[in-house]
């Protein structure tokens, strides 16, 4: 019950922010030259003035901007995200269709980055300034400094073109209408490369943070006490150090959930995944205001939800932090 009320309060507190973001984006897109009809003309490769006029009327662009904004907000109050001009479907439907790949990709790569970063960070901290540390830190730096589209393309070239182990792109196999386990495996095999590509950059950050926070905790008094008690090293690391060193990592998850949504635009394009990132990019280029605002809305909700979970995790890891305060 306490958790629910906390959740409720969290959500209520974020409503004004959400509203500001939505209005801000609406106005920002008004400053971008051209509207969705211009974008459509660009895509068609030609058209005449009469066609354009008809289309503007069709998309409701002949109304004044305050009126358009008012309409939008009024619809939002009624939980109606509006109609997407590029997809010809309600925005909610469009987003729901695109949400699963993004969520899957985000969860998979966050988990990968988190656990691989954790393990590598611990190894690096255990052998600080020796060769495993140097090797891991250098690798981390390389991952961090390399642009993800390049990683993605190289992964395709190596694993799909030359070795032919994994599919080069897409979310699932088109020909085989697989169901159940076969389909799950198929989707998983399509997601291996994107997950690694998106995860590697974040992995670097996690491993640096983990290494630093391990080193810090390892020097604390209670670790010395544990050692003095005669506990073996593995037990000290797992039972005593790790739990305390995890707090900054958990903070990072909350912060990066948002970044991952954005970072996935590149990865989704390279691997032709039908996700939210690409949808957002497309709706900016096509000036599809409703869809874009809808995505912002859903992404904001996602980030709020993740941060809420992170708060709960805090309390679990560190009993001094309680859910009530």
């Amino acid at each position, binding site marked *: 019950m306490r958790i629910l009320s906390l959740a409720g309060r969290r959500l209520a507190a974020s409503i004004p922010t959400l509203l500001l973001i939505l209005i801000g984006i609406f106005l920002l897109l008004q400053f971008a030259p051209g509207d969705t009809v211009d974008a459509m003309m660009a895509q068609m490769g030609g058209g005449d003035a009469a066609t354009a006029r008809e289309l503007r009327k069709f998309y409701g662009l002949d109304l004044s901007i305050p009126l358009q904004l008012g309409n939008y907000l009024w619809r939002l109050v009624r939980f109606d995200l509006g109609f997407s001009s590029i997809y010809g479907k309600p925005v909610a439907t469009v987003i729901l269709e695109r949400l699963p790949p993004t969520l899957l990709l985000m969860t998979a790569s966050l988990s990968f980055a988190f656990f691989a970063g954790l393990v590598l960070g611990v190894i690096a901290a255990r052998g600080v300034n020796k060769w495993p540390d140097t090797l891991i830190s250098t690798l981390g730096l390389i991952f961090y400094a390399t642009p993800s589209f390049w990683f993605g393309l190289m992964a*395709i070239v190596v694993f799909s073109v030359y070795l032919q182990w994994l599919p080069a792109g897409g979310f699932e196999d088109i020909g085989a209408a697989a169901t159940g386990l076969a389909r799950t495996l198929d989707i998983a095999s399509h997601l291996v490369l994107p997950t690694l590509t998106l995860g590697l950059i974040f992995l670097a950050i996690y491993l640096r943070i983990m290494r630093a926070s391990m080193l810090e905790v390892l020097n604390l008094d209670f670790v010395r006490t544990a050692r003095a008690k005669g506990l073996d090293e593995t037990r000290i690391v797992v039972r005593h150090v790790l739990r305390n060193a995890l707090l900054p990592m958990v903070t990072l998850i909350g912060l990066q959930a948002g970044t991952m949504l954005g970072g996935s635009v590149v990865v989704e394009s390279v691997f032709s995944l039908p996700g939210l990132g690409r949808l957002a990019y497309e709706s900016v280029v096509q000036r599809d205001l409703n869809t874009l605002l809808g995505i912002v809305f859903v992404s904001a909700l996602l980030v709020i939800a993740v941060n809420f979970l992170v708060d709960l995790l805090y309390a679990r890891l560190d009993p001094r932090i309680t859910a009530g305060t």
Partner: protein
Amino acid sequence: MALSRFEINRRTVLLTSAAIAANVLNPMRAFAQETPRKGGVFNVHYGAEQRQLNPSLQASTGVYIIGGKIQEPLVDLDAAGNPVGVLAESWESTPDGKTITFKLRKGVVWHDGKPFTSEDVAFTALNMWKKILNYGSTLQLFLTAVDTPDPQTAIFRYERPMPLNLLLRALPDLGYISPKHIYETGDIRQNPVNLAPIGTGPFKFNKYERGQYIIADRNDNYWRPNAPYLDRIVWRVITDRAAAAAQLEAGSLHLSPFSGLTISDMARLGKDKRFIVSTKGNEGNARTNTIEFNFRRKELSDIRVRRAIAHAINVPFFIENFLGDFAKLGTGPIPSTSTDFYPGPNTPQYAYDKKKAIALLDEAGLKPAAGGNRLSLRLLPAPWGEDISLWATFIQQSLGEVGIQVEVVRNDGGGFLKQVYDEHAFDLATGWHQYRNDPAVSTTVWYRSGQPKGAPWTNQWGWEDATIDKIIDDAATEVDPVKRKALYADFVTRANTELPIWMPIEQLFVTVISAKARNHSNTPRWASSTWHDLWLAE
């Protein structure tokens, strides 16, 4: 060989255009002995998803590449570039050009089993081509009625003369038929069938997963005997060009049409035996790179300055070093692939001549200020392709050498069209002029005065010329093909003399296709055509 049927002049022109194609061994000749294989799935790269797939409502390559397999036009172009009947079997015009009669094919059925009749033609022409279709609404502006005396006859009635040869050149792109029984109720634009088209073509729409793929399957009741060969076509949505190249190499794609890859990837795959990289089969989709001048800038309204700019740019150098085999020197608004209207290269041209450019600028009173700067201009490049971006940088550097400082302002598609064609916030703009087989369809609007503000790809230069307006108007209603061709030669001469737009580069789209494909690239608009004879070898 199909080529032996050509008349000599057409043959020379086509052979020249074939010469720009890189790495082509003629696929027809090499595989003439093989027996077509039935079956197979053909995977196609689809770069930019459209808002709809019905080619009677939207004329663009992104729609033809899919809708053109599912729906069919009245006429298409054959291998020699001549009109050939698809849903129409024959046509004739009255001498005054105001009545054009089409005899339609018998025994054609829609994918849902209903028969195809002249009612469908009349409905599509009046409600789609005339009202909604881009370019179509201009072409059919004076269409007043379509009579349907019997199910196999459609009589088009025009208020002003419609040259038969103009209509036949335009119809392959602007003459797709939609089923009346599906569209007659409700708003045509919002009909869900727009994204799940029903046609008469060799492939039936099966499924569209937005952002992923579109599938069409073999139509077993197709009217051409023994066609099509393929079981299925899958269009895969891949927005990243480099990723598409990788998928071709991985074997998950067979075709990337309409220059869908980066220039460097196309050149690289051209050396790979598994692929054929060629401009062949795209002769009907020629485009020219432009420099568009804004006459509202006082300096640019001076013809000497426009000519100086043209003389200052070394186009052959640019083509050789940046575009390679996929482009050639252009000679004006009508490209050399247009066998019916190309006036030859002897219209006024502007060869690279830096001294002359400087002399012209001096003559125009634009003396260099301290630092050598004579004039500062804003150049807006369109974001359609890599070549435009390179071309913009090349213009900037070339003009810098004669003392014209150029600021390149880059926008996305919507922004570019708005700023250039509506707000006129440019000095120079550069993009593509896409030629659609007849100057009256695609080209004269770039020159004719009186275009409404905001209409993209039209004369928004603040330039008006009574001579060219008259030529354009006369040619649009001239029913005699010989006189029409002569008028368009005058048009090109006048356009190149006054130079409101300069079109110095000519390009065809590049097709990258698996060497296993047969019967491909065999018509001038092959990628847009029905693919009823396309097959895949083992």
